[in-house]
């Protein structure tokens, strides 16, 4: 029996459908909670060309849900680690790892080789970038997003159907909606949502009638409730994007500038770093350094003038969550040269940086 015999015996697929799958070109952006199950199923289904975009590394905390990876993948780039595992799953297809962050600069070059784009990212700026570029290039986007116990799935820009902007026209402020690393997520949830996304990819390739276009499927893993909401195409929002001469508007509109994080081993302790401790005054351990200011997060906005913004600002807190919020506040006030210390104050003691 051939690898795809269970597909081929389905009258709705057949050898013809399998040939379509074998010649499909699918780009998966983000090899995380959603990207992993999408990749596993589309690769197993025999999608002929699969691209994987991810700049991040596999962390031990990913393994609770990103079951494509194993302990031996920790520390490796996700796109490369995924390719390695997936080539064992199906060696008959072409898999390309693109270990880069998707940006305004590389997006066109990366998208041009693919027919279907899968959005498995974890931040709004990349989601809007993917949607808008796919809209301009007329490529369908299989969209999935999760929050704690809930997920959303849809297909945008499919046969002139609605786009993500018809649902949420304006990017929300980054920090207003937390991602999994901050609030947690039930491990099985991205598995369910990602598998639904893989299903949509295959339906698009096979030209099935029931593609989830013009609809947003909302799933709640606690109640097992599914709600499907209709989305209408909004020509005004679509024309706004299609009439843009280039992508520069995205960086202007972008409320969700990704907060830059820095690890303690990357801190070069020159005199031009201004540390900002955004913890409350009672929190331990205390850091006493001449280039360290303490301004609790809740007082930061009104005390920005205390900070010497001509220096490189490194905000830190206990674990690295509040300091990300602090950097968002600084970014919103036009202070751009700022970082959040990954891992928080405890990471400073790991390698005796201070």
């Amino acid at each position, binding site marked *: 029996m051939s690898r795809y015999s269970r597909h081929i015996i389905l009258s709705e697929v057949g050898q013809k459908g399998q040939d379509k799958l074998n010649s499909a070109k699918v780009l998966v952006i*983000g090899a995380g909670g*959603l990207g992993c199950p999408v990749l596993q199923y589309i690769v197993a289904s025999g999608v002929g060309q699969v691209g994987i975009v991810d700049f991040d590394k596999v962390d031990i905390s990913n393994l609770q849900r990103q079951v494509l990876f194993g302990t031996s993948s920790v520390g490796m780039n996700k796109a490369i680690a995924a390719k390695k595992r997936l080539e064992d799953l199906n060696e008959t297809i072409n898999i390309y790892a693109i270990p880069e962050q998707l940006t305004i600069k590389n997006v066109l070059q990366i998208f041009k080789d693919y027919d279907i784009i899968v959005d498995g990212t*974890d931040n709004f700026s990349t989601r809007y970038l993917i949607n808008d570029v796919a809209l301009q290039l007329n490529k369908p986007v299989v969209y999935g997003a999760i*929050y704690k116990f809930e*997920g959303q799935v849809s297909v945008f820009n499919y046969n002139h159907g609605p786009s993500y902007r018809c649902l949420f026209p304006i990017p929300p402020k980054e920090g207003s909606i937390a991602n999994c690393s901050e609030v947690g997520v039930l491990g099985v949830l991205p598995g369910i949502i990602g598998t639904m996304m893989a299903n949509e990819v295959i339906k698009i390739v096979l030209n099935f009638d029931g593609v989830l276009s013009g609809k947003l499927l909302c799933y709640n893993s606690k109640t097992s409730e599914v*709600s499907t909401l*209709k989305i*209408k195409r909004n020509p005004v929002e679509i024309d706004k994007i299609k009439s843009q001469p280039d992508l520069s508007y995205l960086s202007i509109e972008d409320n969700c500038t990704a907060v830059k994080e820095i690890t303690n081993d990357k801190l070069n302790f020159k005199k031009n770093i201004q540390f900002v401790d955004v913890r409350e005054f009672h929190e331990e351990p205390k850091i006493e350094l001449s280039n360290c200011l303490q301004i609790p997060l809740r007082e930061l906005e009104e005390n920005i003038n205390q900070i010497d913004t001509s220096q490189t600002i490194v905000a830190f807190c206990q674990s690295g969550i509040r300091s990300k919020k602090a950097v968002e506040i600084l970014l919103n006030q036009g202070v751009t040269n700022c970082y959040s210390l990954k891992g928080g104050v405890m990471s400073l003691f790991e390698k005796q940086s201070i």
Partner: protein
Amino acid sequence: MQLNIKYFGLIAELTSCGEEQLEFQGTKIEEVLEKLFEKYPDLKTKDFQVAQNREIVSNDSKITGGDIALLPPFSGG
């Protein structure tokens, strides 16, 4: 009239319920939102879309049915 309001994601956390019934006299979605903002002042600062009878609608839409849902964007992946 009696409206059934359903909340998703962090909006459900803010209201501490998945759904609730609301007695409402008015004609437009934005009037429902005003009422909800009174009840949940923090809701004003949140991003969300409104669905009526399982269809995403704009805030100036007329109330045509009893099922309203407040849907925030999710970023997680």
